[in-house]
Structure formats: C-alpha cells, structure tokens
C-alpha cells in the first residue's frame, strides 16, 4: 500500500516532467554527461590498469627480473673483418655472484636463448630454445598440460630433452597437446619432447621471456654444451655473430619486504661488474605494481574530482530549473495547500520530481557511459572494464544529487504562504 503510493507519486512526477519534455531533457543533460563521461573514463582507465596490473602480477611480486638486453646500435659491438661480433648479456658468473652474495635470494633461474633451425622428419622450421633450469617452471607459475617439466636429473645429465609450449605444439604437431615423445633434430642433436607447458597468454608479460610461436625449453647445461655462447645469424647476404652467456636471470626473494632492497643491491653489484649501464636492466614487478596502483589511485582521484565538479554543475542546473518550476507552479502549490496538503507532502512531491529527473539522467548517463567503452573496445581493441561498483555508485550519486539539489526548491515550495500562492499570477 505504502509502496503503491510511492509508485503513484513517482508516476505523477514523471507525468509532470513529461509535460515539458525538452526542458526536462535539457535539465538532465548535466547529470547525463557527468555520469556518462565518468563511467566511460573509469572503464577505460580500469581496463588499462587491470591489464597492467595483471601483467605485473604474473611476473611475480617476489621476483626480480634481470635482463641483459641486446644493444640497439653497433657502437658497442666489436667489428670483425667480414662479420661483426656482438657481445652482450649477463654472465654465468653473475648467477654465482647472486647466489653467493645475496642470502635473501631463494632461487635464481638463468635463461639462455638460442635461435636454431629444427627438423621434425622432413619438416624444417626456425625454433627458439630457452635454456633454463627446472625452477623456471615454478617461478613463472606455468602449469604443465602434458608430460613433465625439466628435472634436476636432466640438468645434471645434460639430457637431450625439451618441453614444448602449447603454441609450439600446435604449430609443429597441429594440436596443443600433441607431440609428446616425438623427436626434434636441432643442429645434429635429437631432442625428445617430454612435456607440454601452457603458453603465456597474449595479454601477459612483456618482460618475462615472451613466448614465440615455437618455443622449446631445454636444460641450460644442455644448451651450453650443444650450442655454446656463440650464435650466427644470417640475413640476406650479411652475417652477424652474437656472443651471449645469459639473456636473463629471474631471482626470487624469500621475503616480500626484502624485494626492493635486494633489487637496489643487485643493481649496484651489476654496476660494478658490467660498468656499462645499458648492459643490464633490473626490473622489480613489485615496484611496478606499486607504481601502477599509485597511478590508478591518482587517476581515480582525478576522475572523482571531475565527477564531483560535473555533478555539481549538473545539480545546480537541476536546482535552477526546479526553482523556476516552483515559481511557475506557485498557484498549483497554493491550491494543493488549500485542499489540505501538508508542507511535507509538497516537499515530497517536488523532491520526487527532482530525484526522478536526476536519477533518469544518471541512468541515461550510465547507458552512455557503458556504450562508449563498448565501442572503444570494439573499434580500437583497447581493454575497457565497467566495474559494477561504478554503476551502482553513479546511480546512487545521481539520486543523491537529486536529493541535495532538490531539497531547497522543495522546501521553498512548501514554505510558500498558501494565500499568497493562490493569489500568484
């Protein structure tokens, strides 16, 4: 019964507002655009930051990732007669220094990348081998799809075994889980495939040895023994040679609070050994995570301020129109009072109108605010995410705007002297 009455009041409010459709629409616009733009911006920001946070999270908050990047120019390379030799990367000794000099390090995993041609039967293709240790599979948290990861024994025996990524399996054997037990010939050695590991999803990790289509994990000892540190690349007529010991070392720190101090210490250790600052790069996912979260927080604060300002403007617009409406309907108010309406019933009537106005604006705004990210996601392949909380909040806030900016005009309407209101022209 009570509910029914509220519904009737809302319906009456809507009816009154519909009498001046254009005016009601224009009045709502402030809230519509305020809510719409904030929801849309929030969705874009949330999409971007979720992506970033997810990438970073996958790198592991306990990890420090040390790269030995390939120099861009050739000013650092040593020129040979007909070919040049590019020497870069981290050293085997770096790994030992890390393990000996840093007691906080729980595990350190070397990564050595080798490009070679491989054959399965008569089929030949370019492969990238990742020489590493069994710990790698635990540090990067990549589940095995089939078979087993590399083992300590493989490492010890320098076994000719390989773990294939899902992508590689699909490319080489036309099925994600196929190829277990098959042989791949690479440079005169035949490797047995002992496992299939899940691929890194496309969205994740740029830093952490990104997957190529045909990646293959082998024991680092095997990689050293079979392929050494020197690689030749032929492209067109030119020939380039590279000498790299390790491309990357992933370090896991036992205690979270020790991650950042150790990163600093590792960087200064590397500075002593390598001298050339571009020879190594220390990435701390935890620091990046903090940074990304701080960025997100700042972004949200800025957005909140924009939302506040636009809703303030929208609210003032609504209040302005409602005050005009009260003046315009003074006579009506007088009639209602003469008939026996109590002051609070007049307040109620005008307040409901304002709330209907602002909430409708909010709903339209939310619709627009959800449509824009949808269009963005479809057209420019940018991730967006409309959080449910932002929608609920937007609707709640627009309702609040109605209450806050409606209460004054409503009270003014109710306080009118009935006699004067009846005389009003």
């Amino acid at each position: 019964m009570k509910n029914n009455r509220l519904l009737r009041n809302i319906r009456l409010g809507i009816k009154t507002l519909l009498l001046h459709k254009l005016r009601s629409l224009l009045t709502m616009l402030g809230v519509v655009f305020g809510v719409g733009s904030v929801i849309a911006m929030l969705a874009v920001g949330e999409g971007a930051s979720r992506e970033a946070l997810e990438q970073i999270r996958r790198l592991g908050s306990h990890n420090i990732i040390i790269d030995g990047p390939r120099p861009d120019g050739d000013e650092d390379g040593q020129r040979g007669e007909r070919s040049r030799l590019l020497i870069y990367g981290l050293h085997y000794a770096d790994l030992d220094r890390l393990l000996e000099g840093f007691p906080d390090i729980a595990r350190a995993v070397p990564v050595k990348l080798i490009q070679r041609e491989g054959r399965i039967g008569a089929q030949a293709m370019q492969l990238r081998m990742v020489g590493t240790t069994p710990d790698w599979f635990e540090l990067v948290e990549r589940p095995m799809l089939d078979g087993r990861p590399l083992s300590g024994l493989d490492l010890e025996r320098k076994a000719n075994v390989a773990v294939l990524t899902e992508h590689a399996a699909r490319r080489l054997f036309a099925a994600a889980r196929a190829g277990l037990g098959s042989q791949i010939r690479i440079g005169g050695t035949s490797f047995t495939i002992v496992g299939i590991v899940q691929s890194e999803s496309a969205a994740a990790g740029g830093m952490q040895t990104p997957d190529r289509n045909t990646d293959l994990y082998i024991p680092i000892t095997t990689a050293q023994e079979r392929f050494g540190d020197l690689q030749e690349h032929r492209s067109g007529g030119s020939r380039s040679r590279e000498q790299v010991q390790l491309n990357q070392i992933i370090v896991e720190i036992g205690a979270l609070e020790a991650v950042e101090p150790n990163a600093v210490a590792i960087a200064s250790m590397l500075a002593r050994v390598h001298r050339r600052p571009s020879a190594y790069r220390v990435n701390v996912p935890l620091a990046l995570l903090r940074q990304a979260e701080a960025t997100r927080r700042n972004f949200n604060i800025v957005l909140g301020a924009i939302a506040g300002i636009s809703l303030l403007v929208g609210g003032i617009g609504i209040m302005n129109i409602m005050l005009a409406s009260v003046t315009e309907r003074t006579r009506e108010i007088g009639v209602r009072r003469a008939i026996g309406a109590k002051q609070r019933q007049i307040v109620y009537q005008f307040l409901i109108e304002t709330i209907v106005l602002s909430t409708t604006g909010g709903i339209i705004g939310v619709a627009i605010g959800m449509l824009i990210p949808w269009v963005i996601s479809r057209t420019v392949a940018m991730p967006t995410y409309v959080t449910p909380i932002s929608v609920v909040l937007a609707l709640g806030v627009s309702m609040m705007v109605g209450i806050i900016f409606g209460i004054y005009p409503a009270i003014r309407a109710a306080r009118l002297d009935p006699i004067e209101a009846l005389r009003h022209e």
Partner: protein
Amino acid sequence: MSTPAAQLENIHKTYHMGDEPIRALNGFSTTFDAGSFWAIMGPSGCGKSTLLNVLGCLDRPDQGRYQIDGRDTAALTDDALSEIRLKYLGFIFQSFNLIAQLTVAENIELPLYYLGWHPERARKRATELAQEVGLAGRLQHRPYQLSGGQQQRVAIARALANDPVLLLADEPTGNLDSATGVEIMEMICALNQSGKTVIMVTHEPEVAAQAKHRLVMRDGRIERTEARA
C-alpha cells in the same frame, strides 16, 4: 441545537504596510449555523477575502477565537490546520484554480489523494461527482479544454470530494458570464439544500439574493445582517 459550522469571536487581523496599520478584520464576531447559506457582501477592501481565509484555516487571526465544527483552531500547528482543510472544508475560487497538468478526474480526486484513499475508490467517487456536476463525459479532459463554467463545475466537484462540513466560495461567479453564473448558483443552492453549509463572497446583489442570509461588511466588521424575505 446542532453545533455551529463556524463560530467567530472578536477576530482581529491587521496588516502592516507602511505607517498605517490596515485592519482587515477588526473585532469580527458571528456564528454560521450548520446548514446555513450566507452571502458576504461589502465594498472592496472591507475584509471579505480575509474573513474567508480565516474561515478556511489558510490564515490565522491575530486575536480572537475561531471554532470550526466545534473545534478551536487556535494553537493548531500548520499540519493540523491542513488536516482541518482536508477534512472539513471545500474551496471554490473565483478563478477556478484547477491544476493544469491533471485531468478532470485527477483534479476531482486531489483531496482524496491527500486523504489517502485507494485510487480505485477515489476514481469511482470522482466519476460520481463528475456526473453530479454534469461532466460525466469529460473525465479525461484537461482543464484548458473546458469552458469557464465547466471548469467551475470541476472545481465544485473537487470541493465536494471530501464531503466537507463547510463550503467556502470567493466570488464563484465573478469570472463567468451571467447565464453560466446562474447555472453555477443553481448548483450551489442545490448543495445547500442537500445540507451543506455555504459561505460565499459576492459583489452581485442578484447572486447574493439567492443566499438565505446576507452579511454586509464594512472596515473589517459587520455592518448588518439580513435574512431572505
């Protein structure tokens, strides 16, 4: 004797504009018996509308005692006065004062809405009232689609919706041509005959002649009262 519909004792209402206080009601006393029909007359500015506002609980006297249907209105809150208007009173205005965005039916229902009637029951009553005032086919019309006389009939139906003890009319025929005025007066007389107390302000002697009693005011007081011959 039954309870008087309205009883006024030594009512004062003074407006202060500039230096001279305007005594709109200056010691006004009278009793309006239940079922009576009064025409209030007098020159412009003598306090007729002010009297009606006091009677209608829209205005409070500065001084004096006003009882409606045996209830003293002094010391009543604004809400309580609204309640009295809602339950005891019906207003008919010179300028009809229908609410433009509401239909005829909704205008008639307005008091019932504030009385908290169930919508269906209210609609039924509004339909009956519209029939009584001869506007059965106009329920869904808007006020602007009606003639002045028709609008005043709607206003009368609305004033009757809450079955009031006292009907207050301030120049109900003032905005109507004489033929329509006669129709409206017939309706008001019929209401009085069916038992409603009516207090009506008018300038027109031929309209006043239809009331059972006439009260002529001057300067906020009663100059004379006369009964219909």
